């Protein structure tokens, strides 16, 4: 292979090794490959949502005008919406609009879809973040201990927690826990994000209520917010915990059978030091990917949870729009969730490269 001209300025050492492509060049090619992957995936996402939008049995013209409009008006509207153009042309227009962030107007709220999503998304993020925090802060230690005492009680617990987590319908568990913890025990507050009493005394400027209440020192409100978010976030945290603890256990078992552990033991290091500083340090690299994936899946899994807990996030927004055949909103929401998915995957990939020195050399 002849070395192609590098895109990035070359360092002296790299330039002298003429036959092998320089490190900067390799890195440049990796980045370029990354960008191409992201671009094609995103294009595919748009193609899928565009296609779904075309399959809709509801005629958009009929939806706007009703069935009493004259043929002439129908024709004119059809033209105005660009529906008489060839499909590839329509897709091109759709692409241009999507790049500008224009996903149309929601029929239900009469606002632009992107504006709606920007309003509701922080609520979903707050919930998913808290859930992931609960899941990883409990799941990682649990998984480590299960691997260390293999076959012990903790290992059995991790197994059962995992099995139930993979088998139980989240919306059912949510309903039952509402009956128990809200209706019977009164430990948590009713569905929603904030008590009606506080709706008018608390006027946040961002969508991140918890953060803002803590920042401005409104402690009663913060307590009330926690009473509302506790149950859904613990529930999502449970599902995240089931996944993270099981994966941690697997990674730790692999690490603990490596030879460097034998070396560390031979040096006379304490077992705790070996487990938490040596083995976990190495298991942390794939764990980052697992936690990122679990975060992404919580953003998605919140669709059903939000519907149960009346949580005003993206999931509830999509479900409500679905019920009202508001396709612009549904597809916009789907696209945003898909993009977040891609983004998180990308981020975990990059983190992997940063954390694992071995990937840098390639």
């Amino acid at each position: 292979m002849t070395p192609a001209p590098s895109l990035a300025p070359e360092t002296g050492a790299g330039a002298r090794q003429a036959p092998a492509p320089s490190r900067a060049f390799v890195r440049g090619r990796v980045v370029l490959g990354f960008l191409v992957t992201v671009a094609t995936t995103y294009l595919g996402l748009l193609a899928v949502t565009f296609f779904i939008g075309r399959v809709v049995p509801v005629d958009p013209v009929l939806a706007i005008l009703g069935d009493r409009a004259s043929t002439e008006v129908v024709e004119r509207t059809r033209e105005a919406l660009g529906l008489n153009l060839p499909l590839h042309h329509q897709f091109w227009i759709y692409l241009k609009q999507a790049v500008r962030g224009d996903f149309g107007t929601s029929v239900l709220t009469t606002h632009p879809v992107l504006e709606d999503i920007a309003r509701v998304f922080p609520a979903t993020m707050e919930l998913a973040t808290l859930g992931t925090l609960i899941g990883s802060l409990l799941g990682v230690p649990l998984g480590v201990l299960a691997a260390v005492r293999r076959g012990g009680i903790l290992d059995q617990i991790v197994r059962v927690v995992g099995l139930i987590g993979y088998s139980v319908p989240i919306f059912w568990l949510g309903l039952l826990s509402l009956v128990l913890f809200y209706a019977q025990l009164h430990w948590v507050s009713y569905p929603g994000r904030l008590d009606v009493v506080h709706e008018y005394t608390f006027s946040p400027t961002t969508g991140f209520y918890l953060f803002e209440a803590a920042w401005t020192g409104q402690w009663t409100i913060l307590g009330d917010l926690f009473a509302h978010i506790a149950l859904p976030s613990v529930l999502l945290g449970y599902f995240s915990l089931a996944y993270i603890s099981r994966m941690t256990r697997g990674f730790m078992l692999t690490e603990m059978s490596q030879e460097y552990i034998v070396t560390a033991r031979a040096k006379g290091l304490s077992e705790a030091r070996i487990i938490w500083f040596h083995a976990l340090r190495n298991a942390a690299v794939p764990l980052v990917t697992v936690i990122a994936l679990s975060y992404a899946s919580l953003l998605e899994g919140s669709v059903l949870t939000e519907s149960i807990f009346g949580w005003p996030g993206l999931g509830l927004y999509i479900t409500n729009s679905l019920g009202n055949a508001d396709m612009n909103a549904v597809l916009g929401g789907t696209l945003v969730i898909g993009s977040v998915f891609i983004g998180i995957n990308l981020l975990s990939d990059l983190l992997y490269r940063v954390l694992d020195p071995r990937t840098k050399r390639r």
Partner: protein
Amino acid sequence: MSDPTSSPSSRVQSWRTWLLTEFPASPAQARLGRVYVIWLRFSANRLALTGLGVLIALLLVAAFADVLAPHSAVQGDLMNARLLPPGSPGYLLGTDGQGRDILSRLLQGSRLTLLVVALVAVTAAPIGLLVGTVAGYAGGWLDAVLMRVTDIFLAFPKLVLAMALVAALGPGIENAILAIAIVSWPPYARVARAETMTVRGSDYIAAVRLMGASPGRIVVRHIMPLCLSSLIVRVTLDMAGIILTAAGLGFLGLGAQPPLPEWGAMIATGRRFILDQWWVAAMPGIAILIVSLGFNLLGDGLRDALDPKEADS
């Protein structure tokens, strides 16, 4: 019958030796022997057997639902039997808001669950197998294109894409199944492709190629059978997820429509009575939990039996 060699225990013994022989005399014997070894490993696992038991029970219940169900699943007794608690005479698991026997509805609903699982398995798995093996064997631009498409579908969260699809196609159990199948095949393609890549360069494939086999024949006759075991494991492990997605769609009103006794939709109707008549929503959830747990146990057991290397990780 006085011949001692034909006593039942020794006949079983000779079957065993025939199956476990190191030198099978025919392909059939070798194949049966392999299946027997897998079964031995599988049946040593009590949890896996429990999973198999749940699946068999589900099949039996679905087959004999008409005989087993004490009442109609659709027609209720609004006059006398509205919202009866579990254990009421004649209504073991209680009744719902329309006076319908919950047990009968659950029994009949098992058919819908089985239908969803079976249809998704027979549509998504072959598509994934075909895409994965063709991509893996062909390599080059075909591989790149097929895997790109797979990645795009993987980038969408399953439930959300299924929701959008059902919203476009119109709610109903058929469209829900179609949507779930469309979102389910990409992981199978990934598995099949990985498996294909490992055998593609092997000597026996080269030998078949030298004998003049066409690429199509190689993929269908020599590569696909090798991908089957890992695919079966993957599909079984996915079943629980498919049941949960179908139930989720049903719960949101996008799956089976009333009065069909779909378990997820039953939970949705029970939501109205959840505070006072908890059983209306609780019972279908227990049914879903048992069946998905069964599939998960079965899948774990199959993985351990088919691939002992993976068993520990």
